[in-house]
């Protein structure tokens, strides 16, 4: 939700900017868009569709998640010349590293998780178990690269509860920039 908000905000800024400049808004000239679909399908099954989210054993789901991220790396690399993509690539790299070294899941501490769900719900999750869509509940001392985990929270007064990583911040900035400042056709095709 937080990342989709950055996407929508970037799109509105880009549309507003184009209107102000009296130019048509150009979609980013993405290459090999089919790779995104290939990469996203495993995640749809293991993380997003409620009916299938827990069908696969955790090791297979974690492997699918890592493989999916590697395909996303290929897509982002092919489109690296577009504005915002280098920032997004940094975020993807940070998330990929922390996920790969923590058994294929994004680590989250019980302290951070307690801000997202109520205490009773959290007590039913044991440390080392899957939490939410792509996370694993781990004690900070058991995490690798704890600084890259889902450790940031929105302010308490904010109605939407979410924990996000440093990589997610870069991804949000990158997608915002990509849509707020769309590339010209030649810029995207130069690589």
């Amino acid at each position, binding site marked *: 939700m937080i990342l989709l908000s950055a996407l929508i905000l970037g799109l509105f800024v880009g549309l507003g900017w184009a209107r102000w400049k009296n130019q048509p808004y*150009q979609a980013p000239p*993405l290459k090999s868009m089919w790779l995104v679909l290939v990469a996203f399908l495993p*995640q749809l099954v293991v993380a997003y569709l409620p009916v299938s989210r827990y069908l696969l054993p955790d090791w297979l789901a974690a492997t699918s998640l890592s493989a999916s991220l590697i395909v996303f790396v290929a897509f982002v690399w092919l489109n690296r010349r577009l504005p915002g993509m280098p920032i*997004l690539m940094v975020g993807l790299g940070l998330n990929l590293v922390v996920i790969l070294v923590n058994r294929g899941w994004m680590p989250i501490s019980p302290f951070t998780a307690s801000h997202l769900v109520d205490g009773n719900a959290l007590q039913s999750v044991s440390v080392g178990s899957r*939490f939410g869509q*792509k996370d694993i*509940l781990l004690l900070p001392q058991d995490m690798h690269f704890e600084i890259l985990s889902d450790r940031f929270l929105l302010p308490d007064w904010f109605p939407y*509860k*979410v924990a996000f990583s440093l990589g997610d911040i870069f991804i949000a900035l990158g997608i915002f920039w*990509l849509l707020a400042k769309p590339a010209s056709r030649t810029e995207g095709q130069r690589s």
Partner: protein
Amino acid sequence: MNKNLARLAIFTSKINRQHVQLVLAIAALAMLVLGVGAPSGGSTGGPH
């Protein structure tokens, strides 16, 4: 019936290639951010 078909024809003629490209690009980018990001929301998954 013919009226509806005519309306549909007018509507589809307004959809140009750029609009289709924009929709495809936004859909691809939405999948990209959902795929590469890993935020954990209280209402978007919860504990297993």
